[in-house]
C-alpha cells in the first residue's frame, strides 16, 4: 500500500501538527518507505497468537482514591511558574466557547 498526500494531511491534522505543502510532500516519501518496511510484517500468519501489550504479566496496582499531595498551593505555584500563561491559579488558553 501507499499513502496519499491527502492521508498525510489528515493524519497531521489528527496529530495536531501543522504541516506545509512542501513538508507534506517530503513526509509522504519518507512515510511510504517506512511503511514498506512495516508491511513485511503483514506476510506473517499470526492467527491464534495472543497480542502482547506489555513485557510483564502484571495486574495494575490499585490505590485508595484520596488526595495525597501536601502543600498543594506551593506545588501549584511551582508547576505554574513554568506555564506559558496563567491567572489566579488557572492555565489560560484562547477562548473556546463564544
Amino acid at each position, binding site marked *: 500500500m501507499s499513502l496519499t498526500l491527502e492521508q498525510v494531511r489528515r493524519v497531521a491534522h489528527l496529530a495536531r501538527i*501543522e504541516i506545509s505543502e512542501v513538508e507534506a510532500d517530503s513526509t509522504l516519501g519518507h512515510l511510504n518507505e517506512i511503511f514498506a518496511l512495516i508491511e513485511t510484517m503483514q506476510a506473517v500468519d499470526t492467527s491464534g497468537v495472543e497480542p502482547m501489550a506489555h513485557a510483564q504479566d502484571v495486574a495494575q496496582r490499585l490505590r485508595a482514591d484520596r488526595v495525597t499531595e501536601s502543600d498543594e498551593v506551593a506545588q501549584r505555584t511551582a508547576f505554574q511558574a513554568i506555564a506559558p500563561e496563567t491567572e489566579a491559579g488557572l492555565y489560560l488558553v484562547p477562548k473556546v466557547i463564544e
Partner: protein
Amino acid sequence: MIERSLADLARALATKEISSVELTRLYLDRISRHNPQLNAFITVDPAISLAQARAADERLARGEGGPLTGIPLAHKDIFCAQGWLTTCGSRMLSNFVSPYDAAVIARFKAAGAVLLGKTNMDEFAMGSSNETSFYGPVRNPWELNCVPGGSSGGSAAAVAARLAPAATGTDTGGSIRQPAALCNLTGMKPTYGVVSRYGMIAFASSLDQAGPLARSAADCAVLLNAMAGFDERDSTSLERPTEDYGRDINTATADKPLAGLRIGLPAEFFGDGGSPEVMQLVDAAIADYRRLGAETVAVSLPSMSLSVAAYYVIAPAEASSNLARFDGVRYGHRAPQYRDLDDMYSKSRAQGFGAEVKRRLLIGTYVLSHGYYDAYYLQAQRIRRLIASDFAAAFRQCDVIIGPTSPSTAFRLGEKAADPVQMYLSDIYTIAVNLAGLPGISIPCGFAGGLPVGLQLIGNYFDEARLLGTAHRYQQATTWHLQHPDQFDD
C-alpha cells in the same frame, strides 16, 4: 584519577585522597575544555554541582558515605531534575526547568552522587545517531566525523572522553547498548520494570527502560544497585526483593570462571546482516568465552527479522499517545501567534518538534486511526508475542545469548540522516530485546578501522547479575574496555 573505577573513586573519597569538590572540579574543567568539540552536554551548572559536592564531602566526613557518595555522574536529559533545564533534546522543552526529580535522579541524590550535567540526546530519544537533537549532533570521541550512536549519545560520548566517570541512559530500541558499542563502553538495559520510569520523559512506555553507561561491568553494577527498586509512582515498576547486581562480580576468580555457562548463539545474529569486521571480532570474543570455560549452543530466533517492522508500529503508536501532552498549555513551547486553541496546538507542536519526531507521531497516529488498528497495531503486538516466545524457547537451551550489538562500527555524521529506514535498520540486533522486555548489555570486544565494536549479551528476565558477571569475566581476561581515545588526555 579519570581512569579509576567507581569502586576506586569511592575508596579515594573515603580515605580523603581526593574530595568530592576536587573531583567534581576536575570533571567540570574537562567538560569546559573538551565539550565544545563533542557537544555531549546540553546543560552544565557548576554552582549546583559544587554545592552537591560540598554536601557529599560533609557526609563523607561524618563517615556516612556509600558507594556513590561524592561521585559526579552525568544524566541523559530525559530525566527530570528539579531546578535543571530538562529538554529531552527538543525545542519543545527548551524552556522547561523541571519542578521535580525523576525517581532515578532522586535515588542518585539520596546516594550522595553529584549531578555533573545533563547530556545531549536524540530528540525525545527518537534516533540512533544523536543527529535529531535540537541542540545539534554529538560527535564520537573516537572519530569526530562519526556519530556516537543514539539516542543516549551524549552520555556515551561524555563517558568515552572521560568527561564523566559514568552516566545514565535510556533504552527503548537499543539507545543504551548501541551508543555503548559505538563508543567502547559497557551499557546495560535492565529487565523492563526494574528501574522506575517516574520522571523519565516517556517515549514508548511498554519499551522504555533506564540503565547505566559506564567503563566496565563492575561500574554498571554499582550504578544499577542505586537505580533499581520498586516505585509505586510507576505502574510498571515491579515489586521484587532488593538484590546486589554485583554479586557475580565480587566472587573469587577461578581458572575456568565460566565453566557450566551455556552461551546461546542465534543463527539470526550470524547471517549476512553484520559487517565482516564486526562479525570477526564477535567470533573472536566467543572463542575467548570458550577459553573461560563457557560452552556454546546453537539456538534460533526465527521471528527476530520482524522486530524492526513491529517496533516501528508499536513505538510510534505509544509515542503519539505520550507526546499528545505537549500542547503549549501547561509547560514547554507555545507558538507566539495563533488564531484559536486548535491553531495554538498545531503551531506549537509544528514548531516544537523536529522532523524525525513528527514522522513518528504521524506513523503512530496513522496506525492507531480508525480502520487501521487491527492491521498494524494488533499485528505488531502478535509479532511481539512471537519474538518473546522465540527468546523463551532459546533460554530453555542456554543461559546467556551472545551476538553483535550493532551491524557496523560508528557511521559518519550525515551518512544516514536523510534515510530513516537505513537508520532504523542499524538497531536490528537490539530492538527484539526491548520487545521481549529482557535485559541486555553491550561490552567492548575490539576495534575495526580504529573504531570500537560491541558484543551484546542478552539474559533471561531478571538475570542482570549473571549478565554483569559474564561481562566482568570477559573484562578480567581482556583489555578492550580499558582503551580510550587519547586526544582528550590533557
